């Protein structure tokens, strides 16, 4: 079966290199070039055998119904909470994601956000760039990052990589996950609330599913407390966002570094005037190097599928 006979639907222009290569290697359809989208499904739905998607577009029964010949869904992400896996499984559709290649970037950002939030790096930059640094005697005290207790929700690939980095800052590492494992240097807590109560920095690094939705709720935020800092590099729905916002505005939570939000790209404006938060637009894997590697994984998975070889990074 020739590669270029594989009809691939790309749901969104996530990455120029990916799009270019999909076009070059396969027979590419672009969802956004059809208005309304239904017209594409009517015209080409039954020919499409592969879909390349991303977290912003749900893969549910409705989409799958429109693509009766679909064989494989390849997500340009490691999170696959936007995919109805049981529907895919039932219909025999393979699903792949992009693990490992983005682990370093996400962990780097998590630690960078924690330092930035505690040391108010962003506020310093705004202060200087606004021409406000007039006298050398003016100073803002911020608290040391090294040695802070770091609590990680989910010691998977990303969580463990965060742990290794913060250990170099002499941060004691605590964690919570469904099953306790033997980590001689890390302290397990049997609940997120206890983890939060015993940590200064709480990092969300677990997958999003039914059990972990709003895993950071008011009780957890209160336990983290007025000197605690929340770092979310998971998914917006991991955190009860309205509770988070009011805790930050009222000073019941010390600070936050947020890469994800419940309703991206919308970010609660009440956060915009706060100096103890760092807000970034879902850039966890947003580097040239990593996006290229993610694209290569998507392409590699599709090629393996065509060649009937084992998929590189299957989820289903």
């Amino acid at each position, binding site marked *: 079966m020739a590669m270029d006979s594989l009809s691939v639907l790309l749901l969104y222009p996530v990455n120029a290199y990916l799009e270019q290569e999909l076009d070059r290697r396969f027979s590419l359809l672009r969802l956004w070039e059809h208005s309304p989208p239904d017209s594409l499904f009517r015209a080409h739905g039954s020919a499409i055998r592969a879909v390349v998607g991303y977290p912003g577009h749900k893969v549910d029964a409705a989409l799958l119904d429109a693509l009766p010949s679909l064989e494989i869904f390849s997500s340009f992400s490691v999170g696959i909470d936007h995919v109805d896996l049981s529907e895919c499984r039932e219909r025999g559709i393979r699903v792949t994601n992009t693990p490992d290649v983005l682990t370093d970037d996400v962990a780097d950002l998590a630690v960078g956000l924690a330092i930035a939030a505690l040391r108010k790096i962003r506020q310093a930059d705004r202060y200087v760039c606004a021409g406000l640094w007039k006298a050398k005697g*003016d100073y803002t*005290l911020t*608290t040391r990052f090294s040695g802070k207790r770091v609590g990680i929700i989910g010691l998977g690939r990303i969580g463990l990589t965060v742990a290794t980095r913060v250990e170099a800052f002499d941060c004691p590492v605590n964690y919570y996950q469904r099953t306790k494992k033997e980590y001689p240097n890390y302290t397990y807590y049997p609940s997120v609330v206890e983890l939060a109560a015993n940590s200064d920095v709480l990092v969300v690094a677990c997958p999003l599913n039914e059990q972990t939705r709003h895993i950071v709720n008011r009780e957890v935020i209160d336990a983290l407390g007025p000197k605690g800092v929340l770092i979310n590099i998971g998914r917006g729905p991991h955190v009860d966002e309205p509770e988070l916002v009011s805790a930050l505005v009222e000073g019941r939570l010390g600070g936050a570094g947020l890469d994800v939000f419940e309703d991206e790209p919308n970010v609660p404006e009440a956060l915009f005037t706060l100096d103890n938060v*760092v807000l970034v637009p879902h850039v966890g894997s*947003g580097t040239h190097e990593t996006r290229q590697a993610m694209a290569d994984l998507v392409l590699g998975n599709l090629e393996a599928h065509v060649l009937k070889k084992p998929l590189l990074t299957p989820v289903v």
Partner: protein
Amino acid sequence: METTPQSHADEKPLVFLAQPLFPEFAAALAGRYRFVLAADADSATSAEARVLLVPGLAPVTAQHLARLPALQLVAGTSVGVDHVDLDTCRSRGLSVTNAGPAFAVDSADYAVGLVVAVLRRVAAADAYVRRGRWAADGDYPLATKVSGKRVGIVGLGNIGSRVARRLAAFGCAVSYHSRSPKPSSPYTFVPTLLDLAVGSDVLVLSCALTDERKYMVNREVMEALGKDGVLINVGRGGLVDEPELVSCLRDGALGGAGLDVYANEPAVPPELFGMDNVVLSDHRAVITPESMRGVLEVITANLDTFFSGRPLVIYRSTAMLRL
């Protein structure tokens, strides 16, 4: 001036101040020493001063020192002592102490924070969000990975060695340049600053400012670091040719910079304000309660050792500069 009977056992030791103490320091040190601001002292009192405590970074010149004929110790509260006339101290046989390793941890943390903030565009991406551009204009442009970058550290002392350890944990390949190699260090020694810049993606300055090192990071070094290279300075502004830095950044000859120090603080070249690849701070790397407590311990240890008549030696966490 008071004329009270001399009762040495009751009298707190006299410490001259080059500048007023920070409020946190004044509170902590008040009960232990008798402070006199050098500028306010008459010549009789000045003739008694054996110790000059130097809060902050205002210059301590030959003239200031000349007014204190009995001076034996100049105690700085910072790590850098380039604001003190060390030649005069040397020729008069004065001891000079600094903050030792008290600030090293916070300096190193801030340097790493700047590395991530510049390479991953954290400050610029945050501004993008707060200006509503994520909803209006779509995703923020791609940045570059921190992990795996080649990091060159200038000065592998207390601060540099901590920066090295932290960035090595980020998967960076760490090399360093210093006056001489450190055999116990696991990192690669590079004999010249220029060679270090050629072989690095990120150059971190964490060394003292001396006459030989003034403006050592010049256009040649910055061009060697290159259009994707990033300069991080938590040392002293004087280590860098600042006008050349600005033009290298403007021309794209240098890829980015994270700066906590400048040639003429608090003046910062305004051309840097709008650059997304530049993160600036107001010399705050060590302004934490933890560093303040640390330097107070160093100061009191040094002063108590001095006043007890014991010879000043390396005392636990303190460092005496070998002049």
